[in-house]
């Protein structure tokens, strides 16, 4: 008899690679949804481990709200060039120009909700049957309920009451035409696991994750990067702060935290000591108690 005992990061990594290979084996046209954030960067690293020295059996797909941090876009383009993999970009601006969505107005306007439409259009246009994403169950209570293979109907909707049981490590990816599966290989990772993995793998990240000086305003009690994408008026006072971002989303809805952490060890220390959850810095979750659940039901990532 012999005993095996994988370290937790090795175990999480092996599970995620297994899931990525199941996607490759079970679907005709998968895609990896890439936002430029640390979770999707981790997914890309895991895809390298799952499929190299072969090519990825899927393209990377970025839904560009047009309100991204430039640093994220630069990072994305460098990464795609290094990998030699295909990138498909869906533009929210195009959905606006086509009249498929209407830009929100007012002080708290954000394109966050609009990207669902662009995402669903991009999925339909390319006929993707599986979309791999970097969501984690520890992020939010509705996500804690989600399967690793999460079936969405032809409208992209998630129905929490009609989820398939997910048993052992067997994933059922069979779907009807028009449906697609959202696949979450790092479901079982926590925010800290992702950071520890990034450190272990010596992965590079967009610079906004690290402390830097930036013009900010305070809105709804949160620090926001001052940018042309925010509807600012005379009441908004711009201050120069040393900040970093815990999540990377749209500039209009991702808040910064004041921080001195300019390297990964410091970030890990900071998160370990933090009393605020990662999603505490996302205004989009604060709309109501079921904000995330409602958005996911509507087809949100």
């Amino acid at each position: 008899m012999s005993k095996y005992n994988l370290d937790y990061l090795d175990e999480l990594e092996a599970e995620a690679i297994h899931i990525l290979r199941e996607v490759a084996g079970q679907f005709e046209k998968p895609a990896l949804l890439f936002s430029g954030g640390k979770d999707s960067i981790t997914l890309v690293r895991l895809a390298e481990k799952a499929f190299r020295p072969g090519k990825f059996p899927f393209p990377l797909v970025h839904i560009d709200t047009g309100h991204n941090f430039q640093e994220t876009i630069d990072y994305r383009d460098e990464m795609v060039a290094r990998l030699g993999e295909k990138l498909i970009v869906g533009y929210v601006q195009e959905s606006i120009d086509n009249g498929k969505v209407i830009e929100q107005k007012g002080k708290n306007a954000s394109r966050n909700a609009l990207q669902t439409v662009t995402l669903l259009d991009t999925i339909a246009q390319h006929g993707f049957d599986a979309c791999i994403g970097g969501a984690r169950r520890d992020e939010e209570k509705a996500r804690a309920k989600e399967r690793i293979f999460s079936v969405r109907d032809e409208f992209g909707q998630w129905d929490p009451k009609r989820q398939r049981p997910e048993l052992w490590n067997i994933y059922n990816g069979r779907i009807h035409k028009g449906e697609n599966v959202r696949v979450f290989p790092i479901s079982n990772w926590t925010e800290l696991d992702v950071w520890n993995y990034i450190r272990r793998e010596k992965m590079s990240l967009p610079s906004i994750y690290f402390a830097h000086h930036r013009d900010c305003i305070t809105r709804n009690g949160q620090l926001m990067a001052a940018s042309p994408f925010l509807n600012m008026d005379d009441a908004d006072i711009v201050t120069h702060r040393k900040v970093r971002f815990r999540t990377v989303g749209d500039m209009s809805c991702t808040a910064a935290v004041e921080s001195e952490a300019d390297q990964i060890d410091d970030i890990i220390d900071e998160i370990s000591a933090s009393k605020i959850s990662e999603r505490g810095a996302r205004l989009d979750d604060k709309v109501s108690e079921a904000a995330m659940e409602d958005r996911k039901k509507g087809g949100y990532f």
Partner: protein
Amino acid sequence: MNILKFFTAGSVDDGKSTLIGRLLYDTGSILADQLEALQQSNRKNDDGTIDLAILTDGLRAEREQGITIDVAYKYFQTGKRKFIIADTPGHIQYTRNMVTGASTANLAIILVDARNGVVEQTIRHSYLVSLLGVSHVVICINKMDMEGYSEEVFNTITENYKKMAAKLNLQDITFIPVSALKGDNIVHTSEHMPWYQGTSLLDFLETVEVTVNQDLHYARMPVQWVIRPQTEALHDYRGYAGRILSGAFKVNDKVTVLPSGNSSVIDRIEIFEQTPQEATAGQSVTLHLKDNIDISRGDVLVNSSYLPQRSQLIEADLCWMDNKPMDDSITYFLQHNSKLTKCKIREILHKVNINTLEKEETHEFKLNDIGRVVIKTADELAFDLYTENKANGSAILIDGRTNLTVGALMFRAIVE
């Protein structure tokens, strides 16, 4: 540091969600903004304290009804270990969700209400734990505060449970008297029960051994994907990618490919850019063989000196998970790791009444029914018995009309 996966079972209102909430709360795993949201919630205990159960009830419908509908996964960590909790519903109509949570767990926590003792639900949940072969069981006798923290109550329930459990195949049972509401013996040892000499629940969870303990002979790796770059530089590269289900593979091991039966020898093991001499259960690897043989997704690589069972006719325990009853006249899909084949239910041997554990004759299988069947598969399966090798002894059934996962199968015997 390693990971312990556990799930909680118990009747509705036995306090499963409260217990998990208490574990998270007392280990400092709840952050300030989450705590603030809790305090703003309308759901409060009678004495005005926070209702910890809402931490796990993530869906609107769950919060409305105050019950858990679907499995929720929660994560926390102490200095000693990482934990993944599957919070599974206790309602009888959600047996399938409990089976889901139990299928990947190393340990089960079964809650017993100190006021009610061992009830039908306790038997049912214990049976499921035994059926799924979960290695460790902790019986948390909860709401001890409502029974005056009585040692006698604890002892009576413990004795009754042991009597019932004698009929089951449970391996390692531990009893802990707790109050999830008040926090007794969950994270902190209780001052109210000086007669209890054991550890707190958290202490136990932190120290119970969870290493995969499996015979090296059971080397099994289903092929998920063939890596074949076909570039000039890597013209002859042909790697078989998969996750090792059980056992270990070493360079120079003789391996057999099933179902073809062809053999070869392991030339190289790759884990991304590393080339270890050996890889073991749980690792996702790429194997290279000395000979070029026909291998594709759905095949399984096994140690040649210890072959699995091979058959198209298998006796299996079946848990039915769909609202639509089983139909033995139609063909289902069976997914066994990366292998997908068609199958039919040839015969229903019996159904288990999971409240009395009696076997009953039946001609139908409805939602949440569990029993034994004989299945006939279109292709031969290479499998092990569930008792010997869970990972290679389990499969799911899929209804091709709806694509839903409708059954969980645990292989119990070959039909000669």
